[in-house]
């Protein structure tokens, strides 16, 4: 159970505009399979920046990043996209669903891109994910017809469709009211305990963070407590 899913070694990052500012300063840590990790810290401490570096979307950093024991440094844009497609699920503060497609199709898109299963198989799996999150009856609706909490649940289903090794969240409950936040957190916890899904969630909601397995606290681009 102790396989390392994600490992950061001495990651540093500078913003150069308008003056050079060190946003991440020599960050090293690792996440094992099944862990539910939250990153907290004040606004501007670099927690989101760290998440985007770890997500492979931001490639402008120093240090080494391993995902699923593979070194990410020096990979091409296309290969990094493939890694994100296959190994990482994302849940952002905003849902980012494509309004042109139905809920089901939105969930299916990353799997269609991965192209590992046939379309009918993908559809079946997408329906399973929706059922697991108790929103299977929304499948044929368009995202615009959904409430905020429902949209976020669809986004979670989309994050899970390719069975990623890790799901990353950037303030996944930031836009939700108390009740919906509870539902989303409940889903995360359920996935964590039942399916041993690994999570890395950036949040400023301390009550959210307190209920996770592990808290990484950041300040001024450094990890001060983990």
């Amino acid at each position, binding site marked *: 159970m102790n396989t390392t899913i994600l490992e950061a070694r001495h990651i540093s990052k500078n913003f150069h505009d308008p003056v050079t500012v060190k946003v991440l300063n020599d960050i090293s840590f690792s996440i094992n399979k099944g862990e539910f990790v939250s990153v907290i810290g004040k606004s501007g401490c670099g927690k989101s920046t760290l998440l*985007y570096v770890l997500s492979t*979307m931001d490639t402008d950093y120093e240090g080494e990043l391993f995902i699923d024991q593979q070194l990410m440094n020096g990979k091409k844009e296309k290969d990094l*996209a493939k890694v*994100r497609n296959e190994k990482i699920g994302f849940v952002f503060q*905003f849902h*980012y669903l*494509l309004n*042109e497609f139905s809920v089901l199709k939105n969930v299916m898109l990353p799997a269609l891109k991965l192209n590992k299963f046939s379309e009918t198989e993908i559809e079946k799996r997408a329906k399973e994910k929706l059922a697991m999150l108790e929103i299977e009856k929304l499948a044929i609706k368009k995202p615009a017809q959904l409430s905020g909490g429902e949209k976020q649940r669809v986004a979670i289903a989309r994050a899970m469709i390719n069975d990623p090794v890790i799901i990353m969240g*950037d303030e996944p409950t930031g836009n939700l009211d108390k009740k919906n936040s509870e539902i989303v957190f409940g889903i995360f916890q359920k996935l964590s305990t039942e399916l041993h899904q690994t999570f890395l969630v950036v949040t400023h909601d301390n009550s959210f963070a307190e209920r996770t397995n592990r808290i990484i606290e950041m300040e001024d681009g450094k990890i001060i407590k983990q």
Partner: protein
Amino acid sequence: MLNKLILNIAKALLLARWRQTLVAAIGVTFGITMFVTLLSFMTGLNKLLDGLILNRTPHIRLFKEIKPNADQPIVTSGLYKNYHHFISSLKSGNARQEIYNADFIMRALKKDNQVLGYSPRITAQVFFNYGTIDINGVVNGVDVEEEMRLFTFRDYVIAGKPEDLKNISNSIILGKGLAEKMQVTIGDIVTVTTSKGDRYALKVAGLFQSGINEVDKVQSYASISTTQKLLSKPGSYITDISVKLKDMSTAPAKAIEYARIFNTDAEDIQTANSQFETGTRVRTIISYAVGITLLIVAGFGIYNILNMMIYEKMDSIAIMKATGFSGSDVKKVFMTISLGIGFFGGLAGLIFGFLLSKGINHIPFNTTALPTVKTFPINYNPVYYIIGISFSLITTYFAGLFPSRKASKVDPVIIIRGK
């Protein structure tokens, strides 16, 4: 499967903004419609106008020019070989207008497989006597059957039968203008006086209208034997041989060859009518220029709409990239959108272009100069349709290239963090 997915996404984005899509497509449709119509119409007119002259003009004309002998005594004398010769008051001496050995030349032409056909001619300057007035005119002695076969003679005979030239002895087909001047019609007798002063009575067998008024006022046609009789010449007397080749472009080379072999003068169609080709080319260039301009304008329309779409769909692009679509996938989506607009807009353009040319083809176009033409001419050449659809794809490709590149370079981090 991946291509199908990209196609699906492109289709969804297109349909989500179907009004904009329609406007963009209409731009292309309009451009292609005008392009196809303009070219069909222009080349139709070109063909008509060129046909007016070129159909009736031999590709090579063999004749004997009246000119001074090139071998003057001083030239043949070895004594003045290294001097420059000034000869003044030189006269064309003792020249015959007929082609030497016409029979032999015609037999040789018959064997040449690059030759489609030939037709011997005699030109005779005459006066048509009408009351007290003598009207200057030309009688062309022709082989009617060959003229009809090679130079569409029948198209220009507006009254009477051209075959009658052969069947009725001493008959003549008059130009329409000439007949009007003399107030004669089919069956009447006209009197002609040759340059030597002989008078002949000829029966009018028909009237022709060439489309060129000046020609119709002086020209007339008679059979070879009638013309030989007019000039009191023997049956071997031929002044011109009109040659039609299978490939017109070989005419200049062939003309040089014939001049050398047959020891006559030979003029090719390109030299004789160079202005027509120039006019044709200029008109074609103008049509292409207008068509391409319209397409480029349509291309800018597509460029704008795609740019707007990319700004609108920033979020979608960002999440697609976050969930594993690479920059090139995103680029493909937007290229598909652009090319889709180009393809369907272009296809509609071809259809409308065809219909519009069909419509123009039915507009009455009556002109006394062109007896065979009743409506505006259209050239239904499939090449223009192929060029049209290729142009629409090429312009939309380039119009889509820059916005697509921009979309592929969207940094998802900036978009997602910006929220």
